[in-house]
């Protein structure tokens, strides 16, 4: 318990250092853009595939359940609400931690293990500024961006099932959903969550890399911790945010 609190405290101190050394230069912006490619664009395959299949299976299940109550029309609404409010942000953040968070942790951890971070320090180049900040910022941007794409793909998956399997038409599917999904309460609140989760995923990925012990076991442990800690933190924050928003 006490050890856990110490760890959280260290992570908070690390975050403070990260913010205290923010510098906005064209070089930083370019590096951030490069990292958006590695963290965001390279995660598209997993996000698009998972999004589509989540939409597919969710629609399948809701059709099956709702038909028993004679409310099959509500399937698209159930799909959109559960996606926008919960599944989209939560699943994207956890998938991101597995795909991009781990690689950020491993990269920074290996730079620590191979003394690259020390070498930068010795060249009077701040690794916190040059290595950590762009990756943090890129992840913070990539998670909400991927969440939107995940949601869109899941809706496409839902439409695919409704149209090609259930024989519904797109217009009624989309129209039913549109009528009961609110912009602020459902969609934008969900996007707010995505930003919060992006913050967590970004923070934990760079923190575990930075604080990894400089051995191969240390780096391996750090990547595992990134996934576990992000998943747990995201689910806790999800509950807190949901409780406040409803």
């Amino acid at each position, binding site marked *: 318990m006490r050890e856990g609190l110490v760890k959280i405290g260290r992570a908070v101190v690390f975050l403070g250092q990260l913010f205290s050394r923010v510098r906005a230069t064209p070089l930083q912006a370019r590096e951030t853009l490069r990292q958006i490619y590695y963290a965001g664009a390279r995660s598209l395959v997993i996000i698009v595939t998972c999004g589509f299949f989540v939409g597919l299976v969710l629609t399948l299940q809701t059709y099956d359940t709702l038909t028993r109550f004679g409310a099959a029309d509500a399937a698209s609404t159930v799909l959109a609400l559960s996606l926008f409010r919960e599944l989209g942000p939560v699943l994207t953040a956890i998938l991101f931690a597995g795909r991009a968070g781990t690689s950020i942790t491993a990269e920074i951890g290996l730079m620590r293990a191979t003394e690259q971070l020390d070498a930068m320090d*010795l060249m*009077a180049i701040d690794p916190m500024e040059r290595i950590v900040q762009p990756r943090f910022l890129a992840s913070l941007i990539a998670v909400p961006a991927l969440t939107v794409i995940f949601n869109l793909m899941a809706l496409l998956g839902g439409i695919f099932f409704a149209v090609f399997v259930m024989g519904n038409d797109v217009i009624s599917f989309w129209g039913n959903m549109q009528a009961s999904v609110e912009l602020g309460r459902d969609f934008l609140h969900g996007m707010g969550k995505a930003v919060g989760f992006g913050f967590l995923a970004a923070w934990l990925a760079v923190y575990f890399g930075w604080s990894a012990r400089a051995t191969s076991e240390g780096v391996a442990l750090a990547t595992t911790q990134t996934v576990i800690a992000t998943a747990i933190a995201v689910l806790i924050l999800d509950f807190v945010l949901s409780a406040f928003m409803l």
Partner: protein
Amino acid sequence: MTSDRHDTGHFIEFDKVHLSLGGRTILDELNLSIPHGQVTAIMGPSGAGKTTLLRLITGQLKPDSGRVVVNGEVVSDMSTKALNQYRKNVGVLLQNGALFTDLTCFDNIALPLREHTKLPERLIRKIVLMKLHTVGLRGAAQMYPRELSGGMNRRIAMARAMAMDPRLMLYDEPFAGLDPISMGISLRLIRQVNEALNMTSLVVTHDINEVVKLAHLACIIAHGNVIAAASPDELFQSQEPLVAQFMQGLPDGPVAFHYPAPDLANDLLSGPSRHA
């Protein structure tokens, strides 16, 4: 900074430096002077605090008490800003080179120049190629570190350390794990670069045979203090038991072969419960 100058005639001066890490005393009231313009070797058994000494010079560590003075400036008192300014004049070659694996050799060397100078790219290219030429790897400019051997990696890292034309070069175990040819190349380079650029060089190593060919002055560190500082030849003649043990590579002597342990006979005869 002029008011802070402490001229001592030496380039680096350790003044009663005390340092303990994690409750263990690493350096105990250590005094050491390193002359200007020469190659000085720091030797000593593993774990004696050689690398710690380098980290004090670069300002990565601060002593618990005492002062580290480099070129008249007290490193241990520097602010982060002053330290960054100071580090631009210090080239460090870390044990495994620590090249940035996602940059080409050219970009590795160009990085400090691009970061700290406003030189046009055309000029940076010339400087980088000259540094690469010095270490004999101009042909590998566009290759990535992983495509080169360990010895070549270390030479690239050396070129990077020299990129800003530092006044002081620090080498941490530059010969560890090198084949005899690479070792010969590194040896000659360190000497050449030191003379050509009028630098002061500090080499941490335990390759005694190399030290003889390389260093003007050799210091042996053990038990947190300097036990000998003289020319390599003089050290070979020394009758001091610890120095003799180290210089001749004897397995047992003042530096014990055995890690402290209970008496062997007792340990073997007693049951396993003692270690449980």
